[in-house]
C-alpha cells in the first residue's frame, strides 16, 4: 500500500461510535418535530386544524403555510408557502412537542381538509405534455452536430432501441436532520447538508436576513449522494419557524419513509437511442433522445444524453431531453447524475453493435475513441480512456472471454461484459485557511463539508504534504459557515477545488517561514537562497547545503504565536477553457445467471479508472468500490414505484426497496491509472461519480453474454432474464 494511503481522518471516531452527527447536537429545552402529511396526490389544502392536536400531551406549537407566508417566495419556500398539494405524502404542517413520540401523536391528531384534483401519477399518462427544459445541468438540452438523421439513414448498420431506467432513491444511512435555534435575530442551524454555504444563502433569502447572522454547521455527514440539498430546505425552514415561534431549539429528523419522497430521487428515464456504423465499425451517426420525469413544483433534468456528445468520435450527433411533469416526488442529482442512466443506454447499444458488427466490445470502443472534445472543438486536458480499456482488459483476462452462451459453472451460466464510464472534472471557488502554531502543530480550515467521501483526509494530507509534516500533526476543521467559504459537496469537485486553495495558503506560509529563516542570523539557514529551501519531515532544509532546522524553531525564536495564511482559488471558467477535462474508466464484470431461477450474481468486477493524480489510493479505491456497489444496486435491484391509483409510493421501507447486501458483493479489482494533467492544479480530477456509471451496462451486457437475453430496462428483473430461454 502506498504511503499516500492515509486512513480516514475521522475513522476512529466513526468505528467507535463517537462521531457526533448534527442531529445529535444537544440543546437545552429541545423540542421535537413531526411533519403532518396529506394523502392526496394533487389538490389544495382547505384548512389545517390543530385544535385536537393542541390537547395532546406535550404539544408545543404547529407551523403551517400561515406561518411560512412571510418567507420570501422562491423554489425553496414554494412548497411550504402555498396551499397546493403536488404529490401524495407532501407535508403541509409541522408540529413540535416535548418528545418525539408526543410530536408524532400530535401530528396524527392534526385534521387537514383538502380538495383533491385529478392527478398524473406516471409519465405515461402525460406524454403529450412533454416539454424541453432550458438546460440540463450546465448543458443545453438539445444538441446537433452534423446531420445525424441523414447519417443514420445512410449508415451500413443501425442499432436502434429503447432503454429505460427506474426512479432510484439516494438513501444515505444518516437521515436528514436539523437541530436549530435562534439567538435573538441570529440563527444557529446544525443540519446534515451537502452545502453549508448554499443553505446559509437560502436561509438568508427566505428569512430576509444577513448571511452573517446565520451559522450553518455540518461537520460529519452519514452520506448524501445528492439528496442533502435543496429539497431538504423547506422542511428545515419549518423547523426554524417553529424554533422562532416557540423561542426554543427544535429538532426535526426525517423518517426513512419520508426519505422516499421528500428529498429527491434519481429520475425515471425512457431513452431512444440509435447508433449508425460503417461496416468497418466506425460510428457515423448517433441520435439519443431522453424523456424523463419531473414534479409539478420544481424542474430538474439529468444530463442523461449529454455524455453521448463526448464519449465516441462521431461527426453526426443529435441529442435531446424532454421532461414530463407528474404528481410524484421531485428528482434531484443522484450519484453519477446523467452518466449512470445515459451510459446504460449508450454502452448497452455499443455492446449490441459489437455483436451485430462482429467486433470485440473493447475493440469497437477503441476504434471509436474520441481524441478531442468534438462539441467544443478543443483538446482534452488529458484522456487515458484507452489505457483504461487496455489495463482493465489485461487485469480481467478479457482475452480469454468465452464464446457467448458457452461458459457454465455448476448451475450457473457465466457471462462477461464491459462498459466505459466518464465524468467531467470541474472546480468551484474555494478558500482555505492554514494556521501554524509555534509548537509545529498545523490547523487547516475550510467551510466545505465532508459527505463521508474523504474531504477531511484529503485536505489534511494536501496540507501536510505541502508543509512537509506528518499528517497526524494536522488538525482539519470543516463544515461550518464561520470557516472560509468552500464548495458544495457534489459533482466530484471538492478535492479538486480545495487543492489549489490549500496549495496557495501553504505556499504563502512556506515563503514567510523561509524568509524568516534566511534573515535570522541564529538560524543555520541564514543567508541561504530562497529557492534552494524545501520543507520536509517538519523541517525547513537547504537542498544543496544539507543544513536545516525544524520550522517551529524559526517561529519560536521570533516569539510569534504562530502564522496564518489564506489561499483562494476560482471556479472552472467553462467558456475560457483551452482544454476539456474529464475522468474516465472501463469496467469489466463477470456475472452468473442461475439456470433454473434466473437469479443474477455479480461474481467479479475490475474497474480501471483514470482521473488525474491520485492523492490517496486507499480512499480512491474505497470511492470506486462504493460507486460500483451503487451501480450494482441500480442495475439489479433499486426501483421505487408509484401506485398509479393513489400516487403513493409502494413500500416506503428498506425491506421493499432492495439494495445489494454485503453477501452480494463480488471481488473488486481496482486499477488506478494516474495522469499528469498540466491544465489542472495538481493534476487533480474528481473521482466520486466514475464508479457509479458504466457498470449497469456492463452487467446487462454480461447477462446477454451468459444467456443471450438482452435486457434494456433497469433494474434487470429476473423475469426478464428467464424469458425465452
Amino acid at each position: 500500500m502506498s504511503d499516500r494511503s492515509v486512513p480516514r481522518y475521522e475513522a476512529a471516531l466513526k468505528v467507535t461510535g463517537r462521531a457526533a452527527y448534527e442531529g445529535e447536537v444537544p440543546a437545552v429545552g429541545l423540542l421535537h418535530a413531526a411533519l403532518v402529511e396529506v394523502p392526496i396526490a394533487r389538490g389544495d389544502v382547505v384548512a389545517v386544524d390543530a385544535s385536537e392536536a393542541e390537547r395532546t400531551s406535550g404539544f408545543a406549537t404547529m407551523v403551517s403555510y400561515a406561518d411560512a407566508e412571510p418567507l420570501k417566495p422562491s423554489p425553496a419556500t414554494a412548497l411550504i408557502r402555498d396551499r397546493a398539494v403536488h404529490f401524495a405524502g407532501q407535508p403541509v404542517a409541522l408540529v413540535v412537542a416535548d418528545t418525539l413520540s408526543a410530536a408524532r401523536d400530535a401530528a396524527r391528531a392534526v385534521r387537514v381538509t383538502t380538495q383533491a384534483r385529478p392527478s398524473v401519477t406516471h409519465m405515461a399518462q402525460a406524454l403529450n405534455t412533454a416539454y424541453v427544459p432550458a438546460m440540463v445541468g450546465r448543458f443545453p438540452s438539445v444538441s446537433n452536430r452534423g446531420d445525424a438523421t441523414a447519417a443514420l439513414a445512410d449508415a451500413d448498420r443501425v442499432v436502434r432501441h429503447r432503454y429505460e431506467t427506474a426512479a432510484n432513491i439516494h438513501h444515505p444511512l444518516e437521515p436528514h436532520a436539523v437541530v436549530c435555534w435562534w439567538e435573538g435575530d441570529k440563527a444557529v442551524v446544525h443540519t446534515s447538508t451537502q452545502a453549508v454555504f448554499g443553505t446559509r444563502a437560502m436561509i438568508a433569502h427566505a428569512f430576509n436576513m444577513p448571511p452573517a447572522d446565520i451559522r450553518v454547521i455540518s461537520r460529519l455527514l452519514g452520506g448524501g449522494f445528492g439528496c442533502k440539498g435543496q429539497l431538504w430546505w423547506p422542511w428545515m425552514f419549518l423547523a426554524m419557524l417553529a424554533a422562532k415561534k416557540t423561542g426554543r431549539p427544535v429538532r426535526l429528523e426525517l423518517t426513512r419513509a419520508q426519505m422516499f419522497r421528500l428529498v429527491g430521487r434519481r429520475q425515471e428515464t425512457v431513452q431512444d437511442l440509435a447508433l449508425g456504423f460503417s461496416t468497418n465499425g466506425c460510428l457515423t451517426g448517433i441520435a439519443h433522445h431522453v424523456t424523463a420525469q419531473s414534479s409539478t413544483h420544481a424542474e430538474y433534468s439529468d444530463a442523461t444524453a449529454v455524455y453521448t456528445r463526448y464519449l465516441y468520435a462521431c461527426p453526426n450527433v443529435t441529442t435531446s431531453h424532454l421532461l414530463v411533469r407528474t404528481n410524484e416526488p421531485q428528482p434531484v442529482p443522484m450519484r453519477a447524475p446523467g452518466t449512470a442512466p445515459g451510459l446504460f443506454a449508450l454502452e448497452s447499444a455499443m455492446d449490441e453493435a459489437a455483436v451485430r458488427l462482429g467486433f470485440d466490445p473493447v475493440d469497437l470502443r477503441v476504434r471509436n475513441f474520441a481524441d478531442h472534445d468534438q462539441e467544443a472543438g478543443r483538446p482534452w486536458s488529458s484522456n487515458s480512456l484507452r489505457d483504461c480499456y487496455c489495463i482493465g482488459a489485461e487485469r480481467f483476462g478479457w482475452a480469454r472471454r468465452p464464446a457467448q452462451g458457452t461458459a457454465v459453472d455448476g448451475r450457473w451460466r457465466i457471462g462477461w461484459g464491459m462498459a466505459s464510464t466518464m465524468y467531467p472534472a470541474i472546480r468551484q471557488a474555494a478558500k482555505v485557511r492554514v494556521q501554524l502554531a509555534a509548537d509545529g502543530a498545523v490547523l487547516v480550515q475550510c467551510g466545505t463539508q465532508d459527505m463521508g467521501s474523504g474531504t477531511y483526509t484529503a485536505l489534511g494530507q494536501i496540507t501536510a504534504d505541502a508543509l512537509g509534516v506528518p499528517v497526524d500533526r494536522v488538525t482539519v476543521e470543516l463544515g461550518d459557515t464561520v470557516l472560509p467559504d468552500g464548495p458544495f459537496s457534489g459533482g466530484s469537485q471538492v478535492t479538486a477545488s480545495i487543492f489549489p486553495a490549500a496549495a496557495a495558503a501553504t505556499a504563502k506560509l512556506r515563503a514567510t517561514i523561509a524568509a524568516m529563516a534566511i534573515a535570522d542570523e541564529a538560524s543555520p539557514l541564514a543567508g541561504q537562497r530562497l529557492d534552494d529551501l524545501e520543507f520536509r519531515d517538519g523541517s525547513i532544509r537547504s537542498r544543496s547545503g544539507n543544513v536545516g532546522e525544524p520550522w517551529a524553531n524559526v517561529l519560536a525564536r521570533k516569539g510569534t504565536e504562530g502564522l496564518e495564511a489564506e489561499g483562494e482559488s476560482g471556479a472552472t471558467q467553462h467558456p475560457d477553457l483551452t482544454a476539456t477535462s474529464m475522468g474516465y474508466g472501463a469496467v469489466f464484470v463477470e456475472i452468473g445467471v442461475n439456470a433454473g431461477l434466473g437469479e443474477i450474481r455479480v461474481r467479479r468486477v475490475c474497474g480501471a479508472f483514470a482521473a488525474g493524480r491520485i492523492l490517496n489510493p486507499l480512499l480512491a479505491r474505497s470511492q470506486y468500490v462504493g460507486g460500483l456497489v451503487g451501480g450494482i444496486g441500480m442495475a439489479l435491484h433499486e426501483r421505487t414505484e408509484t401506485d398509479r391509483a393513489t400516487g403513493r409510493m409502494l413500500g416506503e421501507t428498506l425491506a421493499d426497496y432492495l439494495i445489494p447486501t454485503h453477501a452480494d458483493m463480488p471481488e473488486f479489482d481496482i486499477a488506478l491509472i494516474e495522469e499528469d494533467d498540466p491544465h489542472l492544479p495538481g493534476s487533480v480530477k474528481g473521482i466520486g461519480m466514475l464508479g457509479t456509471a458504466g457498470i449497469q451496462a456492463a452487467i446487462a451486457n454480461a447477462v446477454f453474454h451468459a444467456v443471450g437475453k438482452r435486457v434494456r430496462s433497469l433494474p434487470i428483473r429476473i423475469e426478464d432474464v428467464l424469458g425465452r430461454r
Partner: protein
Amino acid sequence: MRYEAPESVEKACQLLADDVGHARILAGGTDLLVQIKTDVLDPSLLIDIKKIQELREINTGSGGFRIGAAVTGAELKEHDGLRAAWPGIVEAANLIGSTQVQGRATLGGNLCNGSPAADSVPALIAAGAKVVIAGPNGRRELPVEDIMVGVRKLALTKGELIVSFIVPPRPKQGGDAYLRFIPRTEMDIAVVGCGVSLQLDADGTCTFARLALGAVAERPLLVGDAAKALIGSKLDAKAVDVAAAAASAACRPIDDKRGTKAFRIKVAAVLARRTIQIALDRAHGKTGTTH
C-alpha cells in the same frame, strides 16, 4: 399503549381475554415494532411474553422437541440436537433477517405475524410440527398448517396464544430441507419458499413425505399431491418431476414487485426439485448439501 410482561401463560391469556382494544403479543418484536413505528398497527396493549419461562425453552423428550414460542433463531441455531435432527427447520428460521435480528426474532412470532412468506413455517409444516395453544378454556393442539388461515389471519380465538411447537422425532433415514428464492443473497422476503421432509425405508423407497410452500398463496400450503408423487417411489427423476409439477400446480400467487405470478409458479417447481434433493441427501446421511 399499555405494556405488560406477565410471567405465566395463564396470566398472559387473562390479559388477552380481558383486553377490549387491540392487544398484541410482543415476542422478539422484529415485525411488531416495525409495524407500530410505521403506523401499520396501533395496539392498545402489548403483552411481552419473554418473561414466561415455558415459552423460552427447548425441551427434548422421547426423541422429539418442544420448542417454546419465544425461542429465538439464534437459540435454535445453538441447539445441537435440533440442528442435527431438523436442519431444515433451523436453516429456515436462520434465514429470517440479519444476525442482530436472529437474536430477537422468535419461531412463534414468525408464525403469528401472519405472513404467507414466513420462512420457518413451510419447514415446520413439512416436519409435521404441531402447535400448542393456550387459552381461557385450557390447552389444545393444531397442526402448524392450520394456524394461518389468510394474510395476517390466524385460527386463534380471543384470549389464545401459542405456547410451543411440538416437533416429532426425526424418523430413521429421514431428512428435511428448506430453500427459498430471493433476488439478492440475503435479508429479503421470500418470493417462493419450499420445505420438504422425507423418510426412506431400507431399500431407499420413500415411505413418508411432506412438501410445503410459502409465498405462493394467501397462506403457506401443504402440497398433498407432491407427497403422493414421492411416497412409494425411489425418488427417481420421474417421481420428482411429478412432485415438482404438483408444487407448481398448487400455487395461487399474486403479482407483486418481488415477482410475477408466472415466475413464482415456475420457481416453485425448481425449488421443490432442489429441496427434495437436499432432503434426500440428508436422509442418506450426506451433509453439507446446499443449493
